[in-house]
């Protein structure tokens, strides 16, 4: 028995691991049922309470409630994070490929473009549609053919054409970065779960928005220029005052309402005090203030954000916040604690002092004297005048740089800045400086992006696909399993066991590696069921042959397996290669297919060569009859 021990442990380990990895998926599906019924009740109660609530508001409130439930239950959240991810084609959503419109960008960058320039640009644009050459190079060539130097329209007179071409191409790539930053910012605020935003090549952006089916919403999210504003941060005293009154009011209204008994009772004394604190000071419990800091910024955990937003959206809280101020989060986490992002919460003047249209240029740099990262910012004449007045009136206050509603930086104004050229200091690192440069330019030079590919799958089609896929999986599995038992009797049962393990391992690996399951991916698993029996069939047929030559059962099994190895490996490796190529070629759903195909091959080999083998060996060792039909 000892000789088998290692393999048995290996198999049991693999099964246990798969089950462990799949448990969150199961738990999440159970949680979803609970949450859906809760939300259903919540929606009904809302509708009975205020019958003329608009659909949009209803959806928004229900979504807030859903976020709140997840915020309250960390184990719901972890289950959701660790479940098998479903692709856009299964859960519904939007897939977009966007490309920076270089022609529009060049038009904006050009210094006093004349008719001739616009004509050439138009021609170059047409040409770029057909050829695989960059628009900047085509335009440069066209200008050269017409004996016009690039410096007539771009850059400075001292630069030669090659320099300018490099610059323009960098501007193009900058525009992509800018667009990505703006899109990411909006997607985060919009609360899309598990979005994916990627840069592809030099000019393209791929955006995946699961669960978004209202196209108008998605487009609103992506199009339109970004709004850059400069807003003064409220003084600490006033901020504390407002936060105090929110805290008191919130404690009051939470106590009076009945649904506060969400949290389970805990036993530890420390927890009790924490809970008590949370009851007395619901606001400060999630918006923590650093008493040592000169600023009254609050710090909020990422998981507490939805809760805080729900608190601030309450009508009675809205009432006590003065009309001329607003809360805004920092765009990037201020720190990371225990693996969780902590965001800064600012209280700002609602009215913007200045908007981004006045910015002419921004540049991140290293200060030669202090080697600290800085950002230089230039404003136009009108902006410079305003800026001098604003900075003069708010010395030693902080001025928040706000893009689309979130704060990117809040430097303190040291003195009055005339002339419109300012330096922003006190930036953490060069990366942060680069980000600020992008943000400042977003107001000045919106990145013109076109949607070149767009795929939307509605939630009902996704649901149909899931049920059709799962039905096919079960039907396919059952027919193949019955066929195998019919044909190979007892050995067929063993092959079916291997088949079951194969499917289990595939799902476990998908969950473990955070891979995405798509409809073609399910098709891949179904196909694997059909093809996975192959290794067993090869082996069984070989064992039959060996038995026919008069070998003992034990010997027949041994040589049956060893004679099959080369055929099994060669045939599976070639199929695996096609999987690799397919993965490289495909996008989204097809990659999902390639992935399950490859994982399926690996799993079915393991199941056929290890799982069925050990069963045979055990049976032979115990002297049981191996029945191959």
């Amino acid at each position: 028995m000892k000789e088998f021990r290692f393999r048995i442990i290996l198999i049991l380990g693999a099964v246990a691991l798969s089950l462990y990895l799949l448990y969150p998926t199961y738990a999440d599906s159970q949680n979803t049922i609970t949450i859906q019924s809760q939300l259903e009740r919540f929606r009904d109660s809302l509708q009975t309470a205020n019958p003329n609530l608009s659909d949009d508001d209803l959806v928004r409130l229900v979504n807030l409630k859903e976020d709140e439930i997840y915020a309250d239950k960390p184990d719901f959240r972890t289950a959701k994070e660790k479940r098998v991810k479903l692709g856009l084609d299964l859960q519904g959503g939007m897939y977009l490929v966007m490309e920076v419109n270089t022609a529009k960008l060049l038009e904006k960058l050009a210094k006093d473009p004349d008719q001739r320039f616009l004509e050439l640009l138009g021609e170059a644009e047409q040409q770029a549609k057909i050829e695989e050459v960059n628009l900047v190079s085509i335009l440069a060539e066209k200008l050269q053919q017409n004996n016009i130097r690039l410096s007539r329209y771009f850059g400075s007179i001292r630069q030669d054409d090659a320099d300018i071409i490099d610059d323009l191409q960098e501007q193009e790539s900058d525009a992509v970065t800018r667009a990505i930053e703006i899109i990411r910012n909006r997607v985060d605020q919009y609360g899309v779960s598990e979005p994916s935003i990627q840069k592809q090549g030099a000019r393209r952006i791929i955006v995946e928005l699961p669960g978004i089916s209202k196209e108008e919403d998605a487009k609103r999210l992506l199009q339109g220029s970004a709004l850059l504003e400069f807003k003064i941060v409220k003084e600490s005293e006033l901020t504390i005052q407002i936060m105090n009154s929110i805290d008191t009011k919130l404690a009051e209204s939470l106590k009076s309402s009945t649904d506060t008994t969400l949290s389970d009772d805990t036993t530890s004394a420390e927890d009790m005090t924490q809970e008590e604190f949370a009851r007395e000071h619901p606001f400060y419990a999630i918006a923590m203030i650093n008493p040592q800091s000169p600023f009254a910024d609050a710090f909020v955990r990422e998981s507490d954000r939805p809760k805080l937003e729900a608190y601030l959206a309450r009508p009675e809280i809205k009432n006590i916040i003065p009309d001329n101020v607003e809360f805004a989060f920092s765009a990037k986490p201020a720190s990371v604690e225990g693996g969780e992002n902590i965001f800064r919460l600012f209280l700002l003047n609602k009215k913007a002092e200045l908007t981004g249209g006045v910015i002419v240029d921004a540049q991140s740099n290293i200060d030669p004297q202090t080697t600290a990262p800085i950002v230089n910012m230039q404003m136009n004449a009108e902006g410079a005048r305003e800026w001098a007045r604003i900075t003069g009136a708010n010395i030693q206050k902080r001025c928040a740089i706000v893009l689309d509603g979130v704060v990117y930086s809040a430097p303190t104004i040291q003195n009055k800045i005339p002339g419109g050229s300012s330096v922003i200091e006190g930036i953490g690192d060069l990366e942060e400086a680069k980000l600020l440069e992008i943000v400042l330019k977003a107001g000045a030079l919106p990145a013109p992006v076109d949607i070149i590919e767009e795929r939307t799958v509605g939630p009902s089609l996704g649901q149909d696909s899931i049920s059709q896929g799962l039905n096919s999986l079960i039907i396919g599995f059952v027919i193949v399993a019955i066929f195998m038992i019919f044909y190979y009797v007892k050995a067929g049962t063993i092959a079916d066991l291997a088949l079951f393990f194969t499917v289990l391992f595939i799902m476990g690996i998908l969950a473990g590696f955070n891979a995405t399951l798509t409809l073609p991916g399910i098709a891949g698993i179904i196909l694997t069921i059909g093809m996975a029996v192959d290794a067993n069939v090869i082996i069984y047929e070989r064992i039959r042959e060996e038995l026919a030559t008069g070998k003992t059962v034990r010997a027949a099994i041994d040589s049956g397996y060893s004679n099959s190895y080369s055929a099994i490996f060669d045939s599976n490796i070639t199929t695996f290669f096609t999987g690799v190529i397919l993965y490289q070629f495909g996008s989204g759903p097809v990659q999902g297919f390639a992935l399950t195909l490859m994982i399926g091959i690996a799993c079915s080999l393991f199941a056929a060569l290890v799982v069925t083998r050990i069963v045979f060996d055990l049976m032979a060792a115990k002297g049981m009859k191996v029945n191959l039909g």
Partner: protein
Amino acid sequence: MRIFENTNFDFLGKRKIAYIVSGVLLVFGLLSLLFKGIEFGIDFKGGTEIALEFEKPIEVGDARDYLGGLGLGNIEVKTFGGETGLLIRSELQEIPADLFPSVLERVETLISKNFPDLTYQITDTTSSSVTYSISDPLLVGPLTDKLTNSGFQAIRFNQEENNSKLIVRVGIADWIQENLLEYMPDNKFKVLKEDNVGPKVGGELKRDATIAVLLALVVMLIYLGFRFKFVFALGAVAALFHDVLITLGIFSILYNVIPGLNLEISVNVVAAFLTLVGYSINDTVIVFDRIRENIKIHKTAPLEDNINKAINKTIPRTIITSLTTLIVVAVLLFFGGEVLRGFAFTLFFGVVIGTYSSIFVASPFVLEYASKVKKNIQF
């Protein structure tokens, strides 16, 4: 239970018949490819495709006639799923220039109907959107809401307070939906899916797909060249070409012949073709592996006998695996839903043809080659 136990069939002796069968299939397939051509889906051709689910059953013919008269050029209208589903496809990605004025007219009628005193002007137009600047910035919000509710997608130009511009987007899909709303106000629909693929993307995808299939063939050639004699690799890849071409031919021949089966080349179908390559080579390798083994054991026996013996020995496995694979593919074909139908169809045919070719094309190729060069094939 056993099938084909100890068969001793002279497969290679019948190879002439197989040549005729393959030849006929290839010739008909190629002729059809040449004259009837092959239909590419919007993944490759670019265009707009929407699938709608109506509340009540819908007459495809009527919808086709109505949509055909919209001036959007050639519009394909098919059923999608059941009789309440409609698949509408246009090769266009954007509203044609001559139609644009009437779209604008509809937008402007809406503006003056809702806000009679408002003056507006167009500040920018692209092929899929138009930017209006209106006289009263305060009305930008209400106006975008009104337009959005009437089916147009309108957004504010930016979030600044004094913004007076709004962008109205008009795509093919929007225009079709907007008109269907008007045509059948009492049969509401919801959008099941909507795809819009630019021509550039389609072109790139076509190139990538061709490269992927060719690359797969080359990789097979190299790997098998390593593991077997080169002539075996050639035989296997010849069989693959045979499989891919015949399946493509069948796509061409059967296009628009079987109702309810949309046989056009989509990304999923290309994935199926690559899988078919993998599957067919799998079958071939198993036979070749046996030939290699037989040649080692029966060194003096003629190659033809060794090959025949190898095919006969592996035929139970070949049949059983093909059968189980066909079972699951058939399940996919019938129960897998509309989205996977083309994929499942390709594989169904591919598995049949791949199994056939590993016996009747790949092995005879090796034999013909060996007798032509009059050399003993060794490993």
